[in-house]
């Protein structure tokens, strides 16, 4: 888990955010201060809100979405690596392979489609009907963060 946090920090440090004013510090401090029972989602968007106080809100939101996208890639890569390891072990131990790699890839693909279609539905509900309406952005932000929490939890259990 600590490795993951470091890896994430390194990646994020080199990521070029659309807005120099954006830093994920508020979101991360919020998450670090949570007790185990509190829903992590209360922290999602904290950095975008802070950034938006003095900067363009849409750019700040885009930056936090980019932050969660990178964190998702990191978590997915880690869990995928574990799945491949388990599948390889099964081959070496001559036990029935479970194809966890295939199952994970299928799950992640289906999640992408779910996010696309869910936010497309939200898009039809709001006045402008545009893909960059704040509510549609928020949909992407929250759904991406939730998948990050899920995959990071899987990674920390294994």
């Amino acid at each position, binding site marked *: 888990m600590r490795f993951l946090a470091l890896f994430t920090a390194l990646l994020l440090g080199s990521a070029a955010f659309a807005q120099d004013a954006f830093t994920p510090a508020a979101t991360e401090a919020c998450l670090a201060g949570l007790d185990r*029972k509190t*829903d992590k*989602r*209360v922290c999602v968007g904290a950095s975008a809100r802070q950034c938006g106080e003095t900067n363009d809100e849409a750019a700040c939101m885009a930056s936090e979405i980019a932050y969660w996208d990178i964190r998702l890639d990191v978590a997915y890569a880690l869990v995928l690596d574990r*799945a491949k390891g388990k599948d390889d072990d099964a081959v070496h131990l001559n*036990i*029935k392979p*479970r*194809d*966890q790699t295939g*199952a*994970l890839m*299928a*799950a992640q*693909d*289906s*999640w992408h*489609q*779910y996010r*696309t*279609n*869910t936010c*497309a*539905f939200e*898009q*039809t*509900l709001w006045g402008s*009907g545009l893909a960059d309406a704040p509510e549609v952005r928020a949909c992407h932000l929250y759904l991406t963060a939730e998948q990050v929490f899920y995959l990071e939890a899987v990674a920390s259990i*294994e």
Partner: protein
Amino acid sequence: MWMILAFSAGVATGSSGSEVVGFDPVITGRCLAAMSEDQSPRSCIGASAEHCMETTEGGWSTRGMSKCLDQELQYWDARLNAAYGKVRTMRKATDKEMSDIGSSAPSQAEALLAMQRAWIAYRDATCDYERSHWGGGSGGGPATVSCHMYMTAEQALFLEADAIVE
């Protein structure tokens, strides 16, 4: 719509709950009613199933857990179907209003259906993945039912919140 209902309900077949005496969805309802505004309704998911495991003889056996979880899955599945039906009726009404005034706005009802279909595929693939953690182990049964229960509950809560949006 009917395909989704049938598909959705099909998940929970295979175990009837007749032997489960400890299941009472009131536990979940009470938990939801007692929540303060800053709490997430998600924290109530699983409350009835857990109560069932504690109060049913053999509730913590693999079979007992599956049955209790399955009972709560049925509860959320019914809520999901009700919420979906409500949202669909509302969205169809909006579509009609929009087309009556000559609007070319994309159909909300069709977008809703596409969302729900994608959610079903996502639920099934995610729970298949969860099952893969267990190999052929006996924990895979309850783990899969638990996955379906949590995901169904979350989608029910999502659609119920959406039903409030007029």
